[in-house]
């Protein structure tokens, strides 16, 4: 269905002010015309009738499917969406929810009870859109029936007095009346009217035309398509999943639950269904602007990926970048972030190798000053811990202390504090790898009693006080944050919106209208009257009436002779 009926679009036609049909009048005429107005919604009765259950439910149903209720529900939907943009949402940013709750311990239970941390899954939000959908269906079915009837009805007969319609012209033509009538039929047909020329009165007669039937079809399509969108959205949410994982460059990832850092499955998603692909990040490349006012902004970053769709499948390569995801059967892989993973070696007080490898540091700001911790539970005689910053381009000032001057690794430095004691790993409680539980740890002190700082550039080693061990900054890797997700039925949602848009265009820009021509013989002359009626507000009907009249042989009217209806 395309809205290409020759009616022109809203923006496509010139019209002088004051020539559109008065809307109020339109409606009155509409309602009094038989078979008219599929667009007039059912009006709810003023007050509920007696309490008989059947009547009550019918009344309730009519209320629910009334235009006014739809309007109120639309408002409520808009309003209900607001809190989700103000209160942090669990599905969007779980950490922010935690931080918010720490800051507002009093409000948290209330907010929790109201579902304010997951507004879009909350009962009340769902209730509003489900009611709206029920209302759409309730609206849709009767309108479909009316539309079907209207489609097959003949154009309504001409009103008795054509000159009382908003736009009309009357003029005389040469030639006999039947010829003028025949011509009227042709003209209206050529303008895509559905034509009915039933009443023949003596020599003359009436021709009735109607067009723009697709407007209501467009409107129905639009509302039906909304249901499709909702269905697609629901399936995507229920059966989809989204997970995030940080992979250090040079390492790999295989798509199973245990590998994810965070994982949010839809409530119907079965973890067994995770597509069995695996991949290796061979290389990661990022370029920052070196100079100019925007220096430090990344211009490009991409990861060189080797992957197999399933174990044993042929190995392929992909250049993973922002806006260039890796699309696999059952999951798409996106590059959503990156950062640094300094490689360190920690030796304990007994000289043994206690830890060696890359440690993921999380960027804190656009300079990529990154925060991270190193936990060394195996160190003897006591476990060791480090907490602090990685600075890709080291800088220092008295006010700020150590900072990063540039996001690229031009002069990388680790700047940390060191601790010893119980890391708290044995309590059984889950512990973040990005936090050091310092409750039972003791900070190393420098000779002057101040904090002992580990400030080491690439390649340097620092001995801890009291011969407790040493830490070496061996090298630097980068990591990438991958997001893996699968949203089934996204084509349904997309198709739904596209259909809705097509329907909308038809609904907004197709102009249903009626036109009548009446031919009468009077005193041996042929009198022609042309009149039109817009069935939607704000048409360019005057021009159309003039056009029809012109093709039937009337002179072009002077602008000010035209019948004006301000």
């Amino acid at each position, binding site marked *: 269905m395309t809205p290409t009926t020759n009616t022109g679009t809203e*923006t496509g036609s010139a019209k002088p002010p004051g020539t559109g049909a008065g809307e109020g009048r339109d409606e009155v005429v509409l309602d009094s015309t038989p078979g008219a107005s599929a667009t007039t919604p059912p009006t709810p009765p003023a007050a509920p009738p007696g309490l008989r259950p059947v009547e009550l439910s019918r009344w309730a149903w009519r209320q629910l499917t009334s235009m006014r209720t739809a309007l109120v529900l639309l408002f409520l939907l808009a309003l209900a969406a607001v809190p989700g943009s103000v209160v942090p949402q669990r599905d969007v940013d779980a950490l922010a929810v935690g931080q918010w709750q720490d800051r507002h311990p009093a409000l948290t239970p209330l907010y929790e009870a109201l579902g304010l941390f997951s507004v879009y899954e909350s009962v009340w939000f769902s209730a509003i859109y489900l009611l709206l959908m029920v209302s759409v269906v309730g609206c849709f079915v009767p309108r479909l029936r009316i539309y079907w009837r209207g489609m097959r009805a003949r154009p309504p007969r001409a009103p008795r007095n054509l000159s009382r319609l908003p736009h009309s012209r009357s003029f005389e033509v040469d030639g006999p009346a039947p010829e003028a009538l025949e011509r009227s039929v042709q003209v209206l047909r050529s303008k895509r009217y559905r034509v009915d020329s039933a009443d023949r009165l003596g020599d003359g007669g009436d021709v009735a035309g109607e067009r723009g039937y697709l407007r209501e079809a467009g409107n129905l399509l639009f509302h039906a398509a909304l249901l499709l969108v909702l269905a697609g959205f629901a399936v995507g949410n229920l059966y989809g999943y989204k997970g995030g994982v940080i992979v250090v460059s040079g390492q790999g990832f295989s798509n199973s639950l245990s590998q994810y850092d965070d994982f949010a499955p839809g409530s119907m998603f079965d973890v067994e269904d995770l597509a069995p692909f695996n991949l290796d990040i061979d290389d990661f490349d990022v370029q920052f602007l070196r100079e100019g006012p925007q220096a430090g902004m990344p211009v490009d970053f991409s990861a060189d990926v080797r992957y197999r769709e399933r174990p044993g499948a042929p190995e392929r390569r992909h250049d993973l*970048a922002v806006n260039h995801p890796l699309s696999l059967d059952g999951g798409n892989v996106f590059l959503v972030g990156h950062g640094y993973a300094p490689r360190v070696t920690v030796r304990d007080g007994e000289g043994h190798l206690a830890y060696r490898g890359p440690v993921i540091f999380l960027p804190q700001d*656009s300079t990529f000053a990154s925060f991270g911790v190193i936990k060394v539970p195996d160190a003897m005689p006591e476990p060791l811990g480090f907490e602090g910053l990685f600075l890709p381009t080291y800088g220092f000032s008295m006010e700020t202390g150590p900072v990063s001057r540039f996001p690229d690794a031009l002069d990388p430095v680790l700047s940390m504090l060191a601790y010893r004691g119980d890391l708290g790993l044995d309590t059984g409680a889950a512990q973040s790898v990005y936090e050091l539980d310092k409750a039972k740890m003791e900070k190393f002190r420098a000779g002057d009693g101040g904090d002992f700082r580990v400030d080491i550039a690439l390649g340097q080693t620092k001995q801890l006080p009291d011969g407790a061990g040493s830490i070496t900054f061996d090298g630097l890797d980068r990591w990438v944050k991958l997001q893996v997700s699968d949203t089934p039925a996204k084509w349904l949602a*997309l198709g739904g*919106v596209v259909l809705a848009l097509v329907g909308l265009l038809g609904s*907004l820009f197709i102009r249903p209208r009626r036109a009548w021509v009446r031919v009468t013989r009077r005193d041996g002359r042929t009198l022609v009257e042309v009149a039109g009626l817009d069935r939607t*507000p704000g048409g360019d009907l005057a021009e159309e009436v003039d056009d029809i009249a012109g093709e039937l042989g009337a002179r072009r009217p002077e602008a000010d002779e035209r019948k004006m209806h301000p």
Partner: protein
Amino acid sequence: MTAQDFAALSNTAIAFAGVVYVLAFLSHLVEMTFGRRVPTAADRRVHAGEGTAHEQSERPGSVATLPPTTTGAEVAAVRTETFARIGVALTVVAALLHALALVTRGLGAEPARVPWGNMYEFSVAGTFGVTALYLLLLRRYRLRWLGPVVTGFDVVVLMLAVLLLYEDAGPLVPALNSYWLVIHVVAAIIATGAFTVGGMASLLFLLKQRAVAREQQGRVRGTGYVARLPEPAVLDRVAYRMHAFGFPIWTFAALIAGPIWAEYAWGRYWGWDPKEVWAFITWVAYAAYLHARATAGWRGRSAAIIALVALATLLFNFIGINFFFGDSSQHSYAAELIVEHPPEDRAYSGFG
């Protein structure tokens, strides 16, 4: 010319465009003061049908050859006409400079790109959208009464953009580097322009309706700008047209192009991010407006108010979200980092 030259030219052009918009606005102000009389029924016809006055002044030397019976009203009508035309002509000049500023802004970045990558550029592009729409539809819908509002709006927004939002030209952050940026944002800008012009018409409709009501009660006789506006029905119709034009484009921008791009960039087509939430709210609000126009008891005043509320949600999405929610929205133009530092990065807990 080097990129820096283009960027400098862009800044100069926007400054000149601002000055010319001010002149256009002043010209429309003068036009309004000439019209600052109670229009009688007779001369209301003269300007209501603009056509009449229009044709008069198109006759060469019309001012000099006015017949001796010329009334004060007619002289005023001709003067009004002259200043109105100057106002429109200046607006055209300003819009050309404005367009130049946009093009050179794009060329001023290395590599050249579309000129809407941050809030400053979005403001400049958005005001251009409003102005271009106004000029394109000026004749067709006889929108000259919008002149003072559009030019005044341009002056204020451009001034705020230059003073508060200015950023030097530079390349796009990688997340914005996609042709969906072009499609999505162009659609959003056009829709925003249409909604803004529609909102202006709705606002004027409310003012005019009130003035007409007062006049009918015989309390106040209208003078000045509002008295010279077209009938409420005309204003309402223009408002509807603009909204009806904007709504499908907004649907496309916010509910088709946006999600497709989000799917490419972030792997989810809809994530209830604040920016998306407010785009959705705007969409629902305009759907409510269209419904209100078809609902008895809601058309007219209530519908116009809904349109203004909807416009407020649109502007809030642009201004409010960027400033108040800067770091929690992936869409924020104001935050320097878009993908480099997504919120999830801070969200590791548990399993690691």
